[in-house]
């Protein structure tokens, strides 16, 4: 049932087409471009914040338990890197929160009753926790008892992780709406527990948490490996490298497993998303997995499959050796009968490759972690210079994976903004002109670009610094750590 919307009077755009030549750029394109670019940017900082916060808390806990000063110095060192990233993550999160109303007012009006609740709960229950306790942690050295001070960093980590939970609950509702009824042309919340136990949310959130641990530990590993390669403070950075590897190995393994299960869940609720990511135009049973192909763009139904692995897709999508997977053509016909004429196929090229970039890189990260743990076990980590070099560059991989993961999940939902309820072209703000969106897009691109440069230079600069002497925990001694302002 298509809802009646104020924006329905607007010219209908062909859904989910990117900025293609020969077609005028519409408000929809611009609004999507702005949302995609600001979200991707924001999510470069979010996982590293969530992951590093946990790791810094672990470092400080170790110091607290063992009293080994090296852990205190590491806590402050990685805490500084954490703070540099939190700053950008927090301020770019503001844009995300306001952007729904700015560019997607028809969407906000339609879903606010359901979608607004998790956002507000995020602010009250998670963001306050993260921000207030970050201030306490940063400035509380020497003023709070060590035990209370340790609790503050755990509160920061919990706040950051909880924050992602509510955002994921809101996003999962767009992927698979539950606990609502459409009344007077608007979605209304009828069951908050259904929203918070949405299977897409539960598994998607777990996937994000694990991906965050992968990102945080890969960054910590890279920084430690750089110092080990340069022979600076080898003893201390070996400790940090060990911790990061011990977290990275299971996190990368579980992230893959949870992600794989998420794929099965999405096959149930968003079969088109999965069919598109496998470039399966026709239904199949059993289904082989296309590991690499050439062609297969949006309208190319006959890609040249270079490598196809029999039965693997059946396994991935259906958890069975001979499971069926519905093809896009069949699904499209079903959707046309259910929702009316239209094209319900997302951009297949983006789907196919974002999935493969994410999955293949996940294997790379896992192998790096495995190798690292092996070298650590054989006590060869410090002498295997090529591995240390590899570990530095491997830090870039989780960021690519996170981006690919979001492109996979968001592009795969198109042409819907809320699966089955509202199409993306009906969600844009009717009152906002293309000129306005051009201006905001330009402003954000320039500002975010400048922030990226500053953040990157600071990160590199502080990552290459030597560990500051521990001194006391009195705040007077903190000038060297650059933790304070």
């Amino acid at each position: 049932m298509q809802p009646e919307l104020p924006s329905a009077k607007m010219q209908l755009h062909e859904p989910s087409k990117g900025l293609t030549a020969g077609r005028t750029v519409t408000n929809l394109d611009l609004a999507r471009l702005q949302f995609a670019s600001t979200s991707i940017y924001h999510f470069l900082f979010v996982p590293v914040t969530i992951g590093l916060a946990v790791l810094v808390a672990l470092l400080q806990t170790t110091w607290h338990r063992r009293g080994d000063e090296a852990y205190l110095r590491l806590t402050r060192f990685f805490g500084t890197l954490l703070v540099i990233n939190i700053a950008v993550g927090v301020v770019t999160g503001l844009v995300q929160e306001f952007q729904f109303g700015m560019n997607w007012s028809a969407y906000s009006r339609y879903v606010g009753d359901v979608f607004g609740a998790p956002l507000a709960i995020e602010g009250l229950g998670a963001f306050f926790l993260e921000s207030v306790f970050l201030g306490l942690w940063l400035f509380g050295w020497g003023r709070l008892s060590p035990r209370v001070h340790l609790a503050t960093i755990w509160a920061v980590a919990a706040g950051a992780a909880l924050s992602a939970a509510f955002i994921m609950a809101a996003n999962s509702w767009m992927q698979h709406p539950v606990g609502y009824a459409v009344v007077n042309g608007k979605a209304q919340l009828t069951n908050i527990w259904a929203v918070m136990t949405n299977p897409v949310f539960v598994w998607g959130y777990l996937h994000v948490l694990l991906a965050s641990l992968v990102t945080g530990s890969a960054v910590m590993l890279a920084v430690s490996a750089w110092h080990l390669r340069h022979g600076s403070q080898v003893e201390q950075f070996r400790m940090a490298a060990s911790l990061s590897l011990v977290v990275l190995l299971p996190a990368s393994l579980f992230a893959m497993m949870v992600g794989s299960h998420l794929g099965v869940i999405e096959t149930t609720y968003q079969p088109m998303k999965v069919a598109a990511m496998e470039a399966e135009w026709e239904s199949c049973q059993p289904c082989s997995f296309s590991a690499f192909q050439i062609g297969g763009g949006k309208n190319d139904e006959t890609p040249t499959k270079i490598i196809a692995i029999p039965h693997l897709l059946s396994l991935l999508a259906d958890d069975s050796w001979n499971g069926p997977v519905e093809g896009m053509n069949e699904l499209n016909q079903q959707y046309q009968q259910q929702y009316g004429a239209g094209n319900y196929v997302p951009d297949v090229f983006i789907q196919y490759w974002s999935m493969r970039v994410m999955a293949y890189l996940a294997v790379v990260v896992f192998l790096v972690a495995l190798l690292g743990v092996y070298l650590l076990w054989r006590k060869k980590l410090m002498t295997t210079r090529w591995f240390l070099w590899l570990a530095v560059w491997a830090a870039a991989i989780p960021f690519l994976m996170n981006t690919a993961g979001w492109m996979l999940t968001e592009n795969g939902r198109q042409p819907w903004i809320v699966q089955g309820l509202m199409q993306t072209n009906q969600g844009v703000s009717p009152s906002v002109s293309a000129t306005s969106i051009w201006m905001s897009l330009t402003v954000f691109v320039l500002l975010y670009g400048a922030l990226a440069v500053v953040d990157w230079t600071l990160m590199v600069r502080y990552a290459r610094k030597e560990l500051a002497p521990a001194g006391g925990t009195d705040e007077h001694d903190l000038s060297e750590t650059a933790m304070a302002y």
Partner: protein
Amino acid sequence: MGLQVFWFIAIAFLWTGFFVLEGFDFGVGMLHGVIGKTEEERRVASATIGPVWDGNEVWLIVAGAGIFAAFPSWYATMFSALYLAIVLLLVALIVRGVSFEFRGKRDGAAWKRNWGRLQGAGSLLAPLLIGIALADLLHGLPIDTSQEFTGNFWDLLSPYSVFAGITLVLLCLLHGATYLSLKTEGDLRERAHRLARRFTLVTGAAVLVFGIWTQVVIHHGAFPDFLTVAAVLAIVASAWLLVERREGWAFAMTAFAMAATVLTFFIDLYPNVMVSSTSTAYNLTVQNASSAPYALKVMTVVAVIFLPVVMVYQGWTYHVFRKRLASPGAPATRPSASGTGASPAAAGGAPVES
């Protein structure tokens, strides 16, 4: 009392809390470059809000998200109508937010100076734009029958709205200067003190004019209401308390003046949430813009549980960081206790007993 009314009050409370707390942050942001004569002093001034500004800003986020959850149509119309103003506001908040973290991360004088200037500009622009935006809700914007904005950027800048923005900036300056006089020592304290006293006159006058103008806008005659009068009296009292050197009480008065001014505004807005200048029939109200009862009930439970808890731990933060900060070299500075040779200005200034 219906849940719609409860949520209107809750949102008024969140905005009030935001301005009482972030108001002095904005003030300190604007003033730290003025009252700090040296880089070190500017850093100390800015560090008075170091541990708290981030938590204070969350009030804005929750106020925005609360509008989204409780009054989706209000959120949709307001944020799309105020589009360019909000883009500017976001730029101001982003630049200001990172300036706190980035400023101290490099040594160069130019680096610090530039981040300090950006912090000042962001802290000025943010309350100005929010003041304009809120005043637009009450003054009215061209809104049609489907609750969509039909005007352009210049419609946002009515004289009343601009004056509201300026009034808020002045309140933030007074509030911030008083806070600085409460939280610093030595020369900084003296300068903050003098500035705060100077701001009382112009801020009090602006609040009075704003109160009267608001009554005119809503056709209630030309007499300021009770809360406006109370706000003006509080500002007068703060001037006297500053002279008496009772900075804690003076700060309580400027906080009260801020709260009363913001609250008056929401009281005068009710039962509308956005006035349509096209036709009063198109006004967005607490009734026609709100979520359904179930969503409001869920949000009410969440707010009743979390908001008091948040206020307790945020209040505790202020207790932890209650000491004054002094710049090194100021007579009141306590010698570095640790004696490890680290700069005593580690956290932007050494704490001294007040």
